[in-house]
């Protein structure tokens, strides 16, 4: 039994939503969403643009306030404890934004300090960079010349430095070349295996079946299907997903969502 399995069994959810609802005016972005991600689990949310994946992540980050329901991080309601819950979360967006006049290491040092970890030595920071897959020389270079993959690695190093318990990954593989995407997938798996709870929003069904402990299919703000990739063959998952997407395209009453 792996550490992740030990963590998962009988542990409370690190990320959880309870009847979460979010509307923007008349537009329903999320409707009664109930998901949970325990330590050592990766939940991949699949869905078309506007299905509510990013809205879910924004609610966990406290960027948005729920219309009703709750988003919980480590048992704490995000809306009630925005600063505290952010300490447990690492967020890696599709485009990891960095300061171009700073080196990778300086960016890492800055974001780690913002998260309250301002006592790391350079050696500690280089260790995080190394774990994320960047060399010391690369870390010392200005990020102005970084590729998207290298930026993602600084994002991962920042998450590691933050010692986060939960990771929110918003389309992290989008736009990465296959090699960089593979490296990132390995890192994500390593994080999960070390006990992190990962919620990943993605369009990439192939990576989802590869990385996920569970796959949630979202449509028009609702979780319409939850699948176990170990129990369901990847071809079948793909078929189910595409079937939902086809329904979505033919549904004249589908809502627009964030």
């Amino acid at each position, binding site marked *: 039994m792996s550490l992740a399995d030990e963590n998962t069994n009988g542990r409370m959810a690190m990320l959880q939503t309870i009847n979460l609802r979010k509307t923007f005016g008349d537009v329903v972005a999320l409707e009664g969403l109930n998901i949970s991600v325990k330590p050592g689990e990766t939940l991949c949310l699949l869905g078309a643009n506007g299905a509510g994946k990013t809205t879910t992540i*924004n609610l966990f*980050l406290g*960027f*948005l306030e729920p219309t009703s329901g709750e988003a919980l991080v480590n048992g704490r309601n995000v809306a009630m404890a*925005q*600063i505290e819950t*952010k*300490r447990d*979360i690492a*967020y890696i*967006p599709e*485009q*990891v*934004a*960095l*300061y*171009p*006049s*700073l080196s990778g290491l*300086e960016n890492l040092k*800055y*974001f780690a*300090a*913002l*998260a*309250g970890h*301002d006592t790391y030595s350079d050696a500690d920071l280089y260790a995080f960079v190394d774990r994320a897959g960047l060399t010391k020389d690369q870390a010392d270079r200005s990020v102005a010349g970084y590729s998207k993959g290298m930026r993602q690695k600084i994002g991962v190093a920042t998450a590691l430095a*933050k010692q986060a318990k939960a990771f929110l990954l918003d389309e992290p593989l989008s736009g990465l070349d296959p090699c960089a995407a593979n490296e990132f997938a390995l890192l994500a798996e390593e994080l999960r295996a070390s006990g992190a709870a990962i919620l990943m929003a993605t369009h990439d069904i192939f990576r989802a079946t590869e990385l996920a402990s569970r796959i949630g299919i979202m449509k028009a703000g609702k979780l319409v299907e939850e699948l176990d990739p170990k129990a369901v063959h990847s071809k079948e998952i793909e078929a189910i997903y595409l079937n939902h997407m086809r329904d979505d395209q033919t549904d004249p009453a589908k809502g627009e969502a964030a």
Partner: protein
Amino acid sequence: MIKAIIWKELLQYRRDGRILAVLFITLALGFAAAFNGWSMVESQQRERQAAVVSDRTTWDNQGKKNPHSAAHFSRYAFQPTSSLSVFDPGLTGFMGSAIWLEAHYRDPATLRSVEDAVEIQRFARLTPAWILQVFAPLLAILLVFAGIAAERERGTLRQVMSSGVPPQHLFVGKAIAALCIIALLAPSVVAAVALAANTHDEVGLPSVGLRLTCIVLAYMLYIGAFTFAAIGISARVAKSKTALVVLVGFWATSVIFVPRFATDVGSALSPAPAAADFEASLSAESSTPFWGGSEEAQQRRANVEAEVLERYGVDKIEDLPINYDGYLLQASEEFANGVFDRLYNELWGAYETQSDIVRLFSVVSPTLALGNISSALAGSDLYAHRHFADSAELFRRDFVKLLNEEMIQNGGQDGYGYMSDNDFWQQNPDFSYTPPSIGAVLSNIWVDILVLLGWAITAFLIASRGVRFSFKQEAMA
């Protein structure tokens, strides 16, 4: 967290060649201005000292002369140049620095150094105060115009927000970092103060230390106001380029154009008489109505004669125990003093109305409020000049009276033939001047202080709310 934000901002500034260039140029200008100010003040103080000695020596050694002739030979009151004029010369050079103290006439101040200056020097004098009033806000804008807008443009604001940074911390961190950079201009101010301490200010402004402290606080409020406003605008607009255009436009308007415009409006709405006209009025209204040949003038002199004959109980001037010519001269002085009071009050009133009109514009230009505070505390504003001119006038009246009394009491029937000698001249007092206290100065500029404080508080609120707004906008994006 705030420490980390400051560290990162300073690191970015250090690597931005544009910021370093602007900082270096401003600092160099500041040093040049400090030296220029010191050179001007030092020269004026030395000239004043030499002039004071020369004036005294000439007076003491004028030899046998009728006291009234001596009153026309006269003396000068030289306005001391305050040591803090090294930092802010204010109206020094514009209002005149010497007043001729003669009988029958209240002369306006003369020796205006700007009359010898080219037009551009009148517009922009290279002084430490001017550098700080004009360039420090520009530096603040260059430092923070992209503060929030660029974070949003490049996506780092979202990363920062996800780290749990409250908006207020980001605002405070960025403001402190920018103010730290602007504080690097302090050596030029320190140089100005050190040079000011090295001038020959014989008179000495009262409470120089306290004045300096107030000046520093006022400039901190001013620079803080621009820094906060720039952060606020940066947080409200979508793009950093837009923020730059808006802020540079605001800078040009409030720092450059409004002060000039306000001065022109003030002069147009409350015109002061032309110098030649004013001097002609002084002469015509103070002298002719008493000494002229009109019936009214003759009646005035007759009244004086009647009054003095009655006082001494005699029927003829020849029987008076005093010198009647001296008595009549003193009576004419007292008549003229009323005229001077009226005309000068009108003149000062026009200037003060101009100042009040200009002050109204400080609502849209903090530079005007700061300029008033700075020059007032440096002892170089209109109030300081008026205080000196009024003191000089009081001395003139006493001095002329002293000379007339000498003629009245000791001249007997000699009339204008009575002569005094060097022994008498050498006993005559010098003009001694004490500049106004800081309390008096502050009571004149409390409106400006409130306006500047209002600017700083408003800008702080704009920035504080702006950053919160930008966080909300980003969260919704």
